[in-house]
């Protein structure tokens, strides 16, 4: 009477063993390319190269900050000197002096007619 369950278990075990054999045949260890292995080791053990990624990140923030500050400063200076240059040029040509009275004198309000 107990032969059937035992048979079932035996079948299941046999199928599992078959599956194990198939997996063993499929999942073979692979060997990475020797060039890859040696190159990665060189990159890992070479101190300057290995520490480059972190330093680059720190450097980047500092560099961006400095570049932005330098850009803003030089832009402002360029603007100031540019305006000064234009003003001095106009002064030398006498344009501004001619304009001064006109700028200073306010136009009279229009006369209202009765």
């Amino acid at each position, binding site marked *: 009477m107990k032969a059937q369950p035992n048979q079932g278990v035996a079948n299941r075990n046999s199928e599992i063993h078959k599956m*194990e*054999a198939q997996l063993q*045949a499929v999942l073979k260890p692979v060997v990475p*390319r020797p060039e890859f292995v040696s190159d*990665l080791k060189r990159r890992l053990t070479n101190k300057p190269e290995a520490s480059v990624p972190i330093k680059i990140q720190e450097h980047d923030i500092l560099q961006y900050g400095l570049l932005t500050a330098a850009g803003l400063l030089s832009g402002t200076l360029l603007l100031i000197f540019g305006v000064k240059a234009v003003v001095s040029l106009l002064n030398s040509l006498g344009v501004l002096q001619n304009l001064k009275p006109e700028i200073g004198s306010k136009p009279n309000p229009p006369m209202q007619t009765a």
Partner: protein
Amino acid sequence: MIRTASKGAVLPDNQDESLLIRAGQGDNEAFGVLYERYMSRIYNYIYYRTGSQLDAEDLTARVFFRAMHHIQNYQDRGLPFSAWLYRIAHNLVANWHRDNSRRKEIPLDDCLLTYSYQDAYPEAALVKSEERERLLRLLRKLPAERQQLLILKFVEHLSNAEIGQIMGRTEGAVKSLYHRTLLSLRDELKEIIAREGSNIEDLM
């Protein structure tokens, strides 16, 4: 379990202790020794999870760079160092799968050197390439932890206890998961074979 191959890879992790201390202090040569010890295992794990040689190389490099940058934070909690590396690899592979919605087919064994197991396992010679591809496709459809278990078991030939340490499970839980995985693979295979058989009959 079969422990004939890659015996050298399964080194007791207490040998790593001094290397880990030195590597944590910035000794790159010590890290190099750890790299040589574990690179192949991590590469194999990633290779079978991604199915691509190029991606396996890229992700293996990332694993070791990440490990090197964080080795100062590494804490010995009684787990082998390899468990930490596998955890990093597992996370990177998970990110890789998330980023690659388009699954690639496994270009297995092409251009790659493999150890021959045919002498040790005559079944290997009998497995046809079609069956192999089918089995690999099924394998890659399994949940990540089941894939990890099978890779550690069949590629690395680790015991249930060692796999448990890496996966953060008890030996019994690993044994149970292994059994359930094999049964589900068997059922899936049967289903596929039956489906393919009916398709052929339909064509005729």
